[in-house]
């Protein structure tokens, strides 16, 4: 986007204005995510920068909200922080419970969505697949249909078959919501897949199972892992279905946050938000790394 030497003054002005506009839009995109990080270290229960924070006075900062995340819901939060304190926190603290639930539900729904989704993507990317377009449309639709409709439907259905208020129900619901992301990512990886490799493997005497695990799988693995990470994030971030089909026992982090935001919002929410931002940065880095690796492996990218 370099400006040519012969650009007129007006064009120069426009060019720099344009860059400023873009910078502002990037600021709009990123500032709301980064702003919660310093605010979560606020010593006061406010959502704004206090004078002490602005003058970088260490007294203006504290980790009390992170501490609250640990102690909230504990039997004896004031006790000395020895082994029994930590085991109390592990067993009773509300946010730790929610985190455990989030990870359990996220893990199993990701496995379910990834296994089923990868198999289906393999079928869908074969040229001889019948009704490809219609089936693809059905499988992607959980991403498009408004979440409240999905949650409403699942509430009635799961109540009638006895899956409501159970881990299995939430896991199945979250897997359904994660499937479109797995399908999209894995089929995108398979677009550049060279099918002569599978034929070569077959002609060398490998049966379909060996071909899958020794030839196809290593090549599409980056795409599968990206899809799995997407599915995990979808489940990790999902709140509406949890609101409708889960019970108190299946409280997840987003559900706990939802309560916090609706009832009384405290900087403890910002501490959770900061931790979640860190998680999303880690996930994004992984996915970008995998994407580049996959592109390199398939020779799509210059570097």
């Amino acid at each position, binding site marked *: 986007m370099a400006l040519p030497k012969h650009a007129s003054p007006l064009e120069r002005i426009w060019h720099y204005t344009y860059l400023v506009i873009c910078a502002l839009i990037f600021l709009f995109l990123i500032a709301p995510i980064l702003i919660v990080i310093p605010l979560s270290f606020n010593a006061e229960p406010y959502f704004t920068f206090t004078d002490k924070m602005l003058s970088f006075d260490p007294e203006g900062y504290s980790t009390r909200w992170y501490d609250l995340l640990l102690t909230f819901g504990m039997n004896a939060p004031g006790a000395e922080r020895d082994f029994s304190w930590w085991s109390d926190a592990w067993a009773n603290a509300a946010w730790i419970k929610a985190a455990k639930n989030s990870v359990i539900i996220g893990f199993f729904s990701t496995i379910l969505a990834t296994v089923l989704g990868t198999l289906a993507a393999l079928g869908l990317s074969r040229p001889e697949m019948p009704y490809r377009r219609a089936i693809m449309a059905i499988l992607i639709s959980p991403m498009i249909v408004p979440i409240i409709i999905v949650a409403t439907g699942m509430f*009635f259905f799961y109540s009638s078959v006895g899956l409501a208020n159970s881990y299995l129900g939430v896991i199945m619901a979250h897997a359904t919501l994660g499937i479109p992301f797995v399908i999209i990512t894995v089929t995108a990886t398979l677009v550049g897949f060279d099918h002569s490799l599978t034929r070569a493997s077959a002609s060398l005497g490998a049966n379909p199972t060996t071909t899958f695990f020794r030839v196809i799988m290593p090549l599409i693995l980056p795409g599968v892992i990206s899809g799995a990470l997407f599915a995990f994030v979808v489940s990790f971030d999902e709140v509406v279905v949890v609101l409708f089909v889960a019970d108190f026992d299946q409280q997840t982090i987003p559900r706990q946050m939802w309560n916090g935001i609706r009832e009384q919002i405290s900087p403890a929410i910002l501490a959770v938000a900061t931790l979640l931002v860190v998680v999303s940065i880690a996930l994004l880095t992984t996915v970008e790394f995998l994407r580049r690796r996959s592109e390199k492996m398939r020779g799509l990218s210059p570097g």
Partner: protein
Amino acid sequence: MADVSLTSPISAPTGAALTTADGKPLKAALASAQARAKRRAFFLVLPLLLFVLITFIVPIGQMLHRSVHNNSFTEHRDFGTNERTPIMTNLGAWFDENPAGTEPDEAAYAALVADLRGLRELRAQGQVGTRINYDVSGTRSLFTKSARRAERLEPPFKEALLDVDEDWADPELWRAMRDASSPYTLNFYLAAVDLTRDETGAVVQVNENRRVYVTLFIRTLLLSALITGLCFLLGFPVAHLLATLPLRYSNLLMILVLLPFWTSLLVRTTSWIVLLQSQGVVNDTMVALGIIGDDGRVQMIYNQIGTIIAMTHILLPFMVLPLYSVMRPIDPSYVRAARSLGASSWTAFRRVYLPQTVPGIGAGSLLVFILAVGYYITPALVGGSSGQLISNLIAFHMQDSLNWSLAAALASLLLGGVLILYWLYDRLVGIDNLKLG
């Protein structure tokens, strides 16, 4: 692969079709091989298809059924024993015998009293009252009150019931009971578009002060269109910049678009609450800069403005990514050629560059619009009362007013609209071209 025998000309009669080694005609062998490949592809997809069918299609279908089917006037279900008992049978029989519009006579009232006594035994008067209350508001207490006294009523029942409450003579109430005596009804759809039936059964608009749904549908569409427009205005320059920068830089800047995309929705919504509160960062900054006085803090959250800002931020990546993937392959030499032929930079942009980005604009706008129309979480948290969308009303009827049939009717109208847009998206863009980062 069926192996074809090419040594057959000697043995095969002249003029016969080519055959495979095991003697099958080549054409048939090919067809069966293709059918096998088809089946194999289909069986790979089948498990997922079944899973989605059970966890997704069936529940939604069941919910749609609920929008036309409500049996709370005809059947009582005991939640303890799960036993189903038909209720309001006497009145149902009277409705069957007498055509619509018949003045309710003593027999009708006698049937009603008998049914009310039945309700009292099953404790189902609340359920029936609620059902009629959906159609004719203020009638729930009528049923509970009359069922309580039904045991002591003596013939003639018409006078006796009118003595309890003279609202029993209301023809609209009788019309509503007649409608409800059949479990299948379209009345919930009528209610979802602010229509109702008068005492003769004709479709009319509801009272002006109770028309909420059409307004809300229109508001949802307008806000979604506005948010799509804002996303386009913000997304286009950014996508253009990313597409024209060398890959090294654009990949770095892309992270600024993808990070919001990967960050929890609740986190982003929380940040906007923090930023936009009247004691929040944006207002504080404006006060510190002297743009507004301390008493003139702008209310930007818990209203429509909050919904618009937060949703634009959340949906912006869905606009930038399709635009970027269309803009990246556009050859810059077209614009250069236009410039060298004498076009001003604006003309070159408008006549040469912009038309090439139309597929991306279409894809991004449709996707953002589809997602915006059904949005629930953000409006629920930052929308206040003026920033609520149709999804929030569905949730209200599901969780608070417990009028599930109306919620289902509203949901199926919303679903219908979204599916039409989805079909359009598939036709114009193709679902295969959906990209995530």
